[in-house]
């Protein structure tokens, strides 16, 4: 076991996962002396009937839902957060439940800051004012297209991000009624994001056993269930296992420094309006190829996590590192037809790559040099091997 000279780790969220998990929410709320949560969700979910199932889980409980704020679409903006905070205050709510994925949870987190800090000026916290107090209880119930990023300690509102340990949700509820995905694309996107984050966390140079524990479980589930999940997006058990993987990967990710794949994908998504997941799928193999090219060690644990004990033990020690990379590639190959394989296919203009590499390098605090970022980007753009 590798122990670094120094590390910090925190996972604030309690995870409850499995059968009838949502029915436990009233009990958990009781533990916070809360009984009137505001529900933040999206119109799509409320129209798809999932919210009905969610409301059904509160039968025979002492909880009153203070309102279902279902105006969130695919973007978390301050306007929505203020509206929801207004609703929260008008109804005298005492906690927040976010049902959905990224934007819904971001809005919920923003509402939480607004109502807990009793302010209207959200962005001062983004500009340096520290969050000082524990916020209101925040429960996250991811639904179909979640990517796990809901469980991190980051809130992104209006394209600005704030990271604070107070922003971890208090409770993550993974319920098999909510997790089955609508489409294969959904699963493809989420699995790729989880994969990129888990691999990134597993291979990060600032490593710790705690991160490894989370990344290990995440990768293990991905290795076991990804293929099936892509074939049958609505399969209940598989979707639950995959959602576990997403959550654990995100928790590992939020304790590890952001990896190159993540940074580049986010910048690319910003520049092109194409979802970050698609870029992660393209970049991940090139990033690993680049690591091998630079003779950086790819830890054997990657293979262990993806393949399991038996296969790992049966593989000669010198081959394990490479086998891990091959396993990742094999899993990604399962996405054929669902996701493009080069950036050329996505029609990313090549002239933008320089700026993107620069921005990503700057955001990593120069952990990745601009040249490295650019090399990976260019290879990925052309689909050229190292």
């Amino acid at each position, binding site marked *: 076991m590798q122990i670094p000279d120094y590390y910090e780790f925190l996972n604030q969220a309690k995870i*409850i996962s*499995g*059968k*009838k998990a949502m*029915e*436990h929410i*009233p*009990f958990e709320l*009781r533990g916070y002396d809360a009984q009137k949560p505001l529900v933040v969700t999206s119109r799509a979910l409320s129209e798809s009937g999932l919210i009905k199932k969610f*409301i*059904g*889980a*509160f*039968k*025979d*409980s*002492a*909880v*009153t*839902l*203070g*309102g*279902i*704020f*279902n105006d969130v679409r695919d973007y978390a903006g301050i306007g929505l957060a203020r*509206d929801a905070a*207004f*609703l929260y205050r*008008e*109804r005298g709510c005492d906690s927040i439940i976010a049902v959905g994925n990224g934007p819904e949870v971001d809005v919920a987190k923003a509402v939480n800051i607004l109502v807990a800090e009793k302010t209207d000026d959200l962005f001062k916290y983004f500009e340096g004012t520290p969050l000082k107090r524990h916020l209101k209880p925040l429960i996250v119930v991811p639904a179909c297209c979640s990517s796990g990023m809901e469980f991190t300690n980051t809130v992104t509102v209006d394209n600005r991000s704030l990271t604070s340990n107070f922003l971890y949700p208090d409770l993550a509820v993974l319920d098999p009624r909510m997790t089955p995905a609508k489409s294969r694309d959904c699963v493809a996107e989420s699995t790729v994001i989880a994969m990129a984050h888990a691999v990134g966390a597993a291979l990060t140079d600032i490593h710790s056993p705690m991160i490894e524990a989370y990344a290990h479980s995440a990768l293990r589930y991905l290795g076991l269930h990804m293929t099936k999940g892509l074939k049958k997006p609505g399969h209940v058990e598989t979707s639950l296992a995959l959602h576990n993987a997403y959550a654990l990967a995100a928790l590992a990710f939020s304790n590890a420094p952001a990896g190159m794949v993540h940074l580049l994908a986010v910048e690319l998504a910003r520049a092109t309006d194409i979802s970050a997941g698609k870029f992660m799928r393209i970049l991940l193999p090139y990033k690993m190829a680049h690591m091998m090219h630079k003779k950086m060690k790819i830890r054997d644990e990657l293979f262990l996590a993806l393949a399991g004990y038996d296969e790992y033990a049966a593989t000669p020690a010198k081959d394990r590192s490479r086998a891990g990379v091959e396993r990742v590639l094999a899993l990604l190959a399962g996405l054929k037809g669902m996701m493009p394989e080069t950036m050329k296919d996505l029609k990313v203009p090549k002239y933008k790559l320089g700026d993107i590499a620069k921005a990503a390098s700057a955001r990593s605090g120069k952990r990745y040099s601009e040249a490295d970022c650019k090399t990976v980007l260019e290879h990925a753009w052309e689909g050229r091997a190292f």
Partner: protein
Amino acid sequence: MNINNYPEIKAGKDFISKIYVAIMLWIVGRAIQAASRVDKEVKKEFAEFPADFMMCMSILPFGPHMVVGKDKNGKVKYMGWNPQGKKITLTMNIKSMAAAMQVFTFQESTTTAFAHDRFTVDGDIVQGLAVVRVLNIVEVYLLPKIITKLAVKRYPKWSEMSPLRKWVGRIIIYVRAFTF
């Protein structure tokens, strides 16, 4: 913004589950009472309990409840469904009605439910465990083997509970539970 577009939603009611669970609790309560007279193991478990023993099994947050305790004569008795006004020494709560349905429809065994954090026990844990053991025995009596096997870790072997004892006990407990 028009807040009337986002109405408050009061928790719904599931009467069927509630009635089903209430009946099951009544049966179990009566059966514990009956078993405590019939089965020597159950008798032994209860014998060690203090005289003021009074347990309440509830479904959070509004019930139904089941109160079983020792009466003045030290006999174990089903004390009805209302815990109010009684001095409860041991509370076993099931976190939600849905969890209770899982348990009482035998989809989850008592121990699995414990492992799944569906129960909370407030009071002396020794008594709590004894109650779990009693429940297991009661299940063996009340239910056919095929169901009970799902609910307990280890179905009693011949050596532990002979078929004769089981069937005689089963009949007596059924008769006692459903008559007054």
